[in-house]
C-alpha cells in the first residue's frame, strides 16, 4: 500500500518554477531515497509534503488521504527533520520536547519523553539549555522530537549534514532499526549517496523540478551499464587505444591517469588484455556499478 503518493506536483515562486512535475509513491515499510542535485527542487518538494509550502499544482496523499483536506490527521502520523533541527535555545532539551509533545496530536507523558531522551543518548543532559548543545546533540534531539509521537512515516531531509563519521553510522543504524524493528516508513533525502545505496530499497531522482527515474534501488542499478575505474601509468597509449579499438565505450578522465569506462556488455577481459599489450601500464581496474555513477548519469542528461 502507498503511504505517500505525490502526483504531478508543481510549485512556482513568482516567475521561478522550483518544482515542475514531480510524481512518486512510497510504499509501507520502504526506506525511500529522495535524490537530486542542488536546486533540483528536493527541499521544496519535501516542504510541500509537510505543508510548509502550498503547492501550485498537483496532489499529495498520505495513507490514501489528501494532505490538503486531512492535514491535522495526516501530520499526527508523520515525523520529520528538515535540514538542521532548530529548537528554542533558551529552553532545556526536556522543555523543548514537552512543547512539541503538546502539539503532536497525541497525549505524551513525561515518562515517555524521558524514555525518548534516553533512547537518543541524551540522558543526563535533558535539563541543559539547547544553546549549549553540539550539532550532534541537536541532531539527536531532533530525532527524539521526530519519534516522540510514534509516527508511521518519518521524513528526513539531509539528516547527516554536519555529522562526523560516527554520527553518520549512528543515523544509518537508527534508520535501519526503525525500518526493521518498528516497521516505520522512511523518506530520506541525502547527498550521502553511499548511505542511500546501503539503506534505501526504493528511490526517486529528480532534476530541474521533474522526476527523472523512480524504482527499486538494486533493480535500477542493475539495469545500468558496468563501469570500470582504470588507473594507468601512461595516459597517451591508453587514450589512443580507446579511441581506435574501443570507440563505442564511453570514457571519462576523472583524475590524472584514472578513467571511468562505461560498457554495456562485459568486455573487461579483452579490454584489459588490449591495455596491457599496448603498454599502458595498468595499475588498477575496479568495477563500479554505484549509485553515485547512476546519479551522475541520470542528472547529467
Amino acid at each position, binding site marked *: 500500500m502507498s503511504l505517500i503518493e505525490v502526483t504531478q506536483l508543481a510549485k512556482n515562486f513568482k516567475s521561478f518554477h522550483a518544482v515542475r512535475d514531480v510524481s512518486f509513491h512510497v510504499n509501507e515499510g520502504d526506506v525511500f531515497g529522495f535524490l537530486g542535485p542542488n536546486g533540483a527542487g528536493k527541499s521544496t518538494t519535501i516542504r510541500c509534503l509537510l505543508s510548509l509550502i502550498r503547492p501550485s499544482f498537483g496532489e499529495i496523499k498520505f495513507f490514501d488521504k489528501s494532505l490538503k483536506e486531512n492535514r491535522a490527521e495526516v501530520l499526527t502520523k508523520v515525523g*520529520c527533520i528538515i535540514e538542521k533541527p532548530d529548537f528554542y535555545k533558551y529552553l532545556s532539551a526536556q522543555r523543548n520536547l514537552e512543547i512539541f509533545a503538546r502539539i503532536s496530536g497525541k497525549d505524551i507523558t513525561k515518562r515517555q519523553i524521558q524514555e525518548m531522551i534516553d533512547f537518543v543518548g541524551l540522558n543526563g543532559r535533558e535539563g541543559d539549555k539547547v544553546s549549549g548543545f553540539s550539532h550532534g546533540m541537536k541532531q539527536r534531539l531532533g530525532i527524539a522530537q521526530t519519534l516522540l509521537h510514534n509516527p508511521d512515516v518519518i521524513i528526513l531531509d539531509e539528516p547527516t549534514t554536519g555529522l562526523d563519521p560516527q554520527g553518520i553510522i549512528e543515523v544509518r543504524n537508527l534508520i535501519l532499526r526503525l525500518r526493521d524493528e518498528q516497521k516505520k516508513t522512511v523518506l530520506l533525502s541525502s547527498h550521502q549517496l553511499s548511505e542511500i545505496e546501503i539503506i534505501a530499497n526504493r528511490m526517486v531522482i529528480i532534476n530541474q523540478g521533474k522526476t527523472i527515474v523512480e524504482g527499486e534501488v538494486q533493480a535500477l542499478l542493475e539495469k545500468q551499464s558496468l563501469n570500470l575505474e582504470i588507473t594507468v601509468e601512461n595516459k597517451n597509449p591508453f587514450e589512443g587505444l580507446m579511441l581506435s579499438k574501443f570507440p563505442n565505450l564511453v570514457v571519462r578522465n576523472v583524475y590524472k591517469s584514472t578513467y571511468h569506462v562505461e560498457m554495456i556488455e562485459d568486455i573487461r577481459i579483452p579490454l584489459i588484455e588490449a591495455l596491457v599489450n599496448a603498454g599502458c601500464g595498468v595499475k588498477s581496474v575496479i568495477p563500479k556499478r554505484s549509485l553515485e555513477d547512476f546519479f551522475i548519469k541520470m542528472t547529467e542528461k
Partner: protein
Amino acid sequence: MWWRNTINELVKIATKIRSYIGIGALTLLIFIVLFAMKADGKSYIGFVTASFEQTLSFNGKILNGNLIAFIIMQMLIVHVPLLISLVTGDLLSGEEAAGTVRMLATKPITRTSIVLSKWFSATIYTLIMTVWLGFLSLFVAKWMFGSGDLIVLNSNGLLIIPEADLAWRFGLALIIAFLALWTVATLSLAFSAFAKNSVGPIVSTMAVIILFTIIGTLDVSVFDSIKPYMFTTHMAAWRSVFEDPYPSYEILESIIILSAHIIILLGITILRFNKKDITS
C-alpha cells in the same frame, strides 16, 4: 489544540529574558516617577495650579497617590507600547529567525490556531503589564503618598474628583488602557507575520504610533476625516473617564474603534500566516 499551544507560548514568554526587560523597565520607570514626585512633587503641583494661585488657594492633599497614579498612566501613550511590542513583535518573526517555525508548522495544528495562541498569549502578557502598571501606580503610590481627591487638568479646565468617586474611574481607565495596549500588541504581532526578524516589527510598531500621533495632533483639515478612525486617537480615551460628566458616547466610540482595529489586525495576521510559504 490551540489551547495547548497557548500553554507553549506562555512557557516561551515566561522563559525569555526580554519579557522581563519590559516588566523591569516599567517598574524602574514608575519608581523613578515616584521618587521624583516624592523629592519635588510640590513644584509639579505648582505648575498645574499656577494660573489660579493669584486669587485662589488650594488646600488639602493635592499630591496624593491618586494624582501620582494619573501621572504614571500618562506614560501609556508612548513608553508602555514600546515595552509590549518588544515581546509581541517577536512572537512570529522570532520563530522564523530561529528556524523553529519549521518545527511548529509541521505539527498537526492549523496555522490559524498557531496565530490565535500567540495572540492570546500576547494578550495575557499585555494584561500582566497593565495590571502591574495599575498595581504600582495605584497601590504603591497610595502607600507612599497616601490617598485623596484627584485634581485633573483637562482641556475644559480644572476638575477635582472626590476620592470616593475614583475607584471605578481608575478601574474603567485601566480597562480602556488595556484595550489600547492590546491594539498595539496585535499591531506588532501583525507586523511580525510579515517579517523574518524581531527588529522590524518593533520599530514598525513604534513608527506607526509616532506617525499617527503626529497626524492626530496636526491641526490640518485634510486629516480630519481619518483622525477619528486612527487607533492612536483613541489610545488616550482612558483620560475621558476623568471628566465630569464623563463622555460615555465618546468612550464607547473609542472602545468600538480599538476593538475593530484588533479584529482587523488579527484577521490580517491569520490571513498572512496561512498564505505564507515557509522556506527558511
